[in-house]
């Protein structure tokens, strides 16, 4: 049953929230959200001590039963989802600093989104994976449209069209794989696909990877991300950045790294170049923009490129680097977006041309931003350093010098984006001379949420051994170890 908690707890909470009057929704949602990390920790503890956990619906023998399975990778991502849900709810409790409007649909949609993500991380059935992608998609659409202004509706439309195209490709790939092999369970599907002739397996796996790449916002399929994310309220933007593209990346690691392993080399070679172009185009896109939300959202594409590069290495060490980078990116990008929301709270704008003077007005916030930005760039000892170090070292060890060079170059462009924010928002005097930093009204929950994330990120950077050991073991168990 523990395997099912990442799905059942948020789904039950969402249903309960739907039935409750709005005044009670937040409390019910918080209760469910607090239970989720406990389940995640129990799951991780069980997986680390006793190996992967599985449960088959109805006790049917495999491959006929619908299987759920959790290993170290699933448990880590479930924990990230649980943590981010709590951060969002804590931020919402203050009700300020660009919080989401307290609509009666907010809590059910939030819980539904996390249920879809959590279930995608623990499912061991390809059709089930598609269903959880759809659940996440429909909840994300509802959250995007929550504010209901023209900007949000426009963003929702673009998100809808491009993402639905992605899930349709995914469904087509699932149907064709089923038609070719007669299996949907991951283990049976992997064995049956390995027996297929290469001329049939390659196009099917390409179609599947293509669908996941659209969901992961990789070049050239990322257009939905910068078209929509910046219209979200800050806590939801943090949640989306931490979670949504990760589901696509998780699915890539799971399918190419475990289920269909060994996948065709050609796929990984193409994936490597997609990763390189994603890294560069994401970093350059971020360098162009001046709106904090847009810079940070666009920059995610660059970070997704690093994760794809690690996946493209097609080795256990590469997968370990990809998993570590996913954890690092979820935490740091979410924290940076929440920092941007505090900049907005102090200055009333997200656009760097209309903010400034925060080094004098908000020294604490400056320190927080500096720590997070250094981590994103990858200055030691920070979480970003260890993640990038693992990716680049493994790329060099496998002889892909050109990919490694591009990865380092993209890091330099990241430095430029972060310097731009630092110079414009913190060092530059505020463009309006009569501006004074406002009082920190109702910001205690927001500060607590950001502070908690920051502590976790700092401990990641200063004590990376346990994190690296965990992801190494996770990558090993992907290929059938314990």
């Amino acid at each position, binding site marked *: 049953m523990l395997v099912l908690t990442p799905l059942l707890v948020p789904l039950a909470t969402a249903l309960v929230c739907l039935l409750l009057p709005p005044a009670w929704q937040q409390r019910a949602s918080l209760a469910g959200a607090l239970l989720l990390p406990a389940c995640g920790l129990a799951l991780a503890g069980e997986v680390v001590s006793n190996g992967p956990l599985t449960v088959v619906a109805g006790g049917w023998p495999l491959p006929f039963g619908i299987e759920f399975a959790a290993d170290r990778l699933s448990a880590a991502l479930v924990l990230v989802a649980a943590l981010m849900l709590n951060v969002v709810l804590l931020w919402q409790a203050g009700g300020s600093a*660009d919080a989401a409007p307290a609509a009666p649909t907010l809590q059910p949609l939030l819980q539904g989104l996390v249920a879809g993500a959590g279930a995608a991380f623990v499912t061991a059935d390809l*059709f089930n994976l598609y*269903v959880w992608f*759809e659940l996440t*998609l*429909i909840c994300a*659409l509802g959250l995007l*449209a929550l*504010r*209901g*202004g*023209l*900007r*949000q*509706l*426009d*963003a*929702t*439309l*673009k998100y*809808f*069209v491009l993402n*639905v*195209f992605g899930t*349709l490709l995914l*469904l*087509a790939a*699932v*149907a*064709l794989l*089923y*038609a070719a092999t007669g299996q949907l369970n991951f283990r049976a599907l992997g064995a049956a696909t390995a027996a297929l002739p290469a001329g049939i397996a390659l196009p099917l796996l390409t179609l599947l990877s293509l669908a996941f790449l659209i969901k992961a916002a990789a070049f050239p399929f990322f257009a939905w991300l*910068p*078209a*929509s994310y*910046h*219209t979200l309220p800050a806590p939801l933007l943090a949640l989306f950045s931490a979670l949504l593209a990760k589901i696509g990346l998780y699915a890539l690691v799971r399918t190419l790294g475990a289920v269909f392993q060994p996948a065709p080399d050609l796929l990984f070679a193409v994936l490597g170049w997609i990763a390189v172009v994603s890294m560069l185009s994401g970093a350059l896109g971020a360098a*162009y*923009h*001046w*709106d904090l939300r*847009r810079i940070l959202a666009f920059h995610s594409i660059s970070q997704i490129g690093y994760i794809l590069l690690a996946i493209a290495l097609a080795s256990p060490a590469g997968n370990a680097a990809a998993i570590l980078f996913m954890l690092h990116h979820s935490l740091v990008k979410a924290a940076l977006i929440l920092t941007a929301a505090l900049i*907005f709270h102090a200055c*009333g*704008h*997200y*656009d760097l*041309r*209309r903010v400034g003077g925060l080094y004098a007005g908000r020294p604490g916030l400056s320190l927080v931003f500096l720590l997070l930005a250094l981590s994103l760039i990858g200055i030691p000892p920070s979480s970003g350093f260890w993640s990038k170090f693992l990716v680049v070292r493994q790329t060099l060890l496998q002889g892909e010098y050109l990919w490694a060079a591009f990865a380092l170059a993209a890091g330099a462009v990241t430095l430029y984006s972060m310097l731009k924010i630092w110079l414009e928002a913190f060092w530059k005097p505020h463009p309006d001379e009569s501006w004074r930093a406002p009082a920190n009204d109702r910001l205690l929950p927001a500060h607590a949420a950001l502070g908690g994330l920051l502590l976790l990120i700092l401990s990641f950077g200063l004590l990376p051994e346990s994190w690296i050991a965990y992801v190494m073991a996770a990558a090993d168990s992907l290929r059938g170890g314990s």
Partner: protein
Amino acid sequence: MIWAVALALAAVIAAGTYLASSRDLLRCLIGLALVGNGINLLVFASGRLLSQMPPFVASGAQQLAVAANPLPQALVLTAIVISFVLLCFSLVLAIRLLQTAGSADTAKLRAAEPVAVEGSKPALEETA
């Protein structure tokens, strides 16, 4: 039979793709729904269309005789429900967009991504 389904599938997906690439909001959304239905047909056909017999094991027998594959039918039911939900959501979204923006031309919908100012600089954006 399978070739007739394959032809129908190709026609529906071609029509859907054509509509989905339209600049008109409603055509685009209907096109996506058509492609979705085409792919549902693909899911349905993925179990092969060999027989119309219901998949019951005859009494006393240990194995199923030639019968329809029930699994793709269960899968396609789920997929149909999901595509119907998405179609409903997209139509409501289209109505709200038409009311708010006053235009069905997707090329004119630039509220979330305003056109650059002074040649190439990103436009100043609304906050909310």
